[in-house]
């Protein structure tokens, strides 16, 4: 009997758990450890954040799904890895601390044969003084609860606008190293759409504050599209939308601190500025969860297992090299730890070898460039492929992972909502292939010009709605779920 332990039940961890359970016989055990009782379809949090959806529409309890799927669920957080086992037992283990009401704080040492670290990001609001909803001065849409709070604050601003007061809304990222600019973009345009729907757009100033060098970068270095016989860029395309909807943008910015009603930032050229706001939704930077690692003797080996940002090192090329020497082959393929072949890191939890966008710093050394996104479709694909590898290692005795999922050989579909509504909604529908550019294979654009596309329209909004229902159906492991691709 083998035991597969999966840390985290987000998109990658939950996908891996369902697939590995499906592929293993009943004699094998699959255990999911997650501090959260509910699963959250995070892409729809932006609609919760503008009051168009409720928490119930984007979350559901995990326990009944896992009970039905014969997956052992522990509502707990991982605090330490023992990949070589401990003095009593050489089998790898993970120390978990329960968050389940009634067992809160209780520890358990969980032995494993295979471990998948899919713990996702730690929302690092602490990186910027005053950032965030918990004791800070801004809101977030990173969790459903955060999005509910954002919607409440937004409604307060809407009411002031309806009373004739002018309001300034700042939406974007709260640190120079943030990722998920796409989510900030979506929220900015959904808010703008709501303002128009409520008839108060003329009294509101909407400002998008970002660490991107250019609009349309989205942390993937931008995209090149072939449209109407011309090559065009995601920059031009995105700028057009900003100009059409009269959303102002502050680019290349690192937020230094957020005070009540005021955000202070510096830009890549060294200039410093501040913005007064009535509403600020600023996403936090991410770092790895607070996990330690120990060898059998109890020596701390965290720095060998994890990158300085706390993400798990996997089979990537982490050697430091300049942007010009970055290669598609730097990116991991199997997501196995180089030191421990039964330990995997997927989704946001794996350490990328470097960003995708060109890295940039101020003269004083402040990094202002997006971290690479690895959410949504790539996360799900990693989960599925790592699950297949582990199943082959258990069922067929494969000596090494049999499936790969390099982001340099993986496409992604991204639907960025720019306003909700079945008749009046809009979304930017983008496909890109591959996610990590490969100029050696695809020329200067770095990506296939036939498979990298973008368009704006109501159809994109329908697609986002369809994906919302489809992926929640899949995550609930309803009949036929395995046929729905990631």
């Amino acid at each position: 009997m083998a035991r597969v332990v999966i840390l985290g039940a987000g998109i990658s961890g939950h996908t891996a758990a369902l697939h590995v359970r499906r592929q293993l016989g009943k004699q094998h055990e699959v255990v999911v450890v997650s501090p959260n009782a509910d699963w959250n379809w995070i892409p729809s949090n932006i609609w919760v954040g503008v009051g168009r959806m409720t928490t119930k529409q984007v979350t559901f309890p995990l326990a009944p799904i896992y009970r039905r799927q014969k997956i052992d669920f522990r509502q707990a957080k991982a605090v330490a890895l023992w990949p070589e086992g401990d003095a009593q037992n050489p089998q790898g283990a993970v120390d978990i601390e329960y968050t389940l009401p009634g067992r809160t704080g209780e520890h358990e040492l969980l032995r494993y044969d295979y471990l998948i670290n899919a713990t996702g990001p730690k929302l690092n609001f602490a990186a910027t003084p005053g950032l965030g909803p918990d004791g800070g001065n801004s809101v977030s849409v990173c969790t459903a609860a955060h999005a509910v709070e954002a919607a409440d604050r937004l409604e307060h601003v809407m009411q002031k606008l309806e009373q004739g007061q002018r309001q300034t809304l700042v939406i974007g990222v709260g640190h120079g190293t943030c990722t998920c600019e796409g989510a900030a973009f979506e929220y900015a345009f959904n808010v703008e759409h709501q303002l128009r729907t409520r008839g108060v757009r003329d009294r509101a100033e909407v400002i998008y504050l970002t660490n991107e060098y250019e609009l349309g970068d989205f942390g993937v270095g931008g995209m090149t599209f072939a449209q109407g016989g011309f090559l065009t860029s995601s920059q031009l395309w995105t700028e057009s939308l900003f100009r059409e909807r009269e959303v102002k943008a502050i680019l290349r910015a690192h937020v230094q601190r957020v005070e009540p009603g005021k955000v202070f930032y510096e830009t890549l050229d060294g200039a410093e500025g501040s913005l007064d706001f009535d509403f600020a939704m600023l996403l936090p930077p991410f770092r790895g969860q607070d996990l330690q690692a120990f060898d059998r003797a109890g020596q701390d080996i965290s720095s060998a297992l994890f990158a300085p940002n706390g993400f798990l090192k996997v089979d990537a090329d982490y050697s430091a090299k300049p942007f010009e020497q970055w290669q598609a082959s730097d990116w991991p393929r199997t997501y196995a730890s180089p030191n421990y072949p039964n330990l995997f890191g997927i989704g946001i939890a794996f350490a990328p070898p470097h960003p995708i966008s060109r890295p940039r710093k101020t003269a004083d050394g402040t990094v202002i460039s997006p971290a690479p996104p690895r959410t949504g479709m790539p996360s799900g694909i990693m989960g599925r492929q790592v699950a297949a590898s582990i199943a082959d290692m258990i069922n067929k005795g494969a000596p090494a992972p049999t499936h790969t999922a390099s982001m340099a050989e993986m496409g992604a579909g991204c639907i960025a909502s720019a306003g909700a509504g079945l008749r009046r909604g809009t979304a930017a529908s983008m496909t890109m292939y591959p996610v990590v550019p490969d100029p050696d294979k695809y020329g200067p654009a770095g990506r296939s010009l036939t498979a990298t596309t973008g368009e704006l329209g109501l159809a994109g909004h329908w697609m986002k709605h369809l994906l919302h229902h489809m992926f929640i159906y899949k995550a609930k492991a309803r009949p036929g779920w395995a046929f729905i691709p990631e």
Partner: protein
Amino acid sequence: MPESPPAAPYPGQLVHTEAPVPTRRTIRRRTSLPLQAYRFGAISWKMLQTIRRTHQH
């Protein structure tokens, strides 16, 4: 057609962009039900192609 954003009071602001703004016809097309139903099919096809390419590896 909206004018270009005015000169910036904020450091780093996107002061001016020459990006084209859509015509009224383009905006209408973006919400035209028959056309968007067709585009929905096209986007679905593109998504499926992206998935197919990814799974070839």
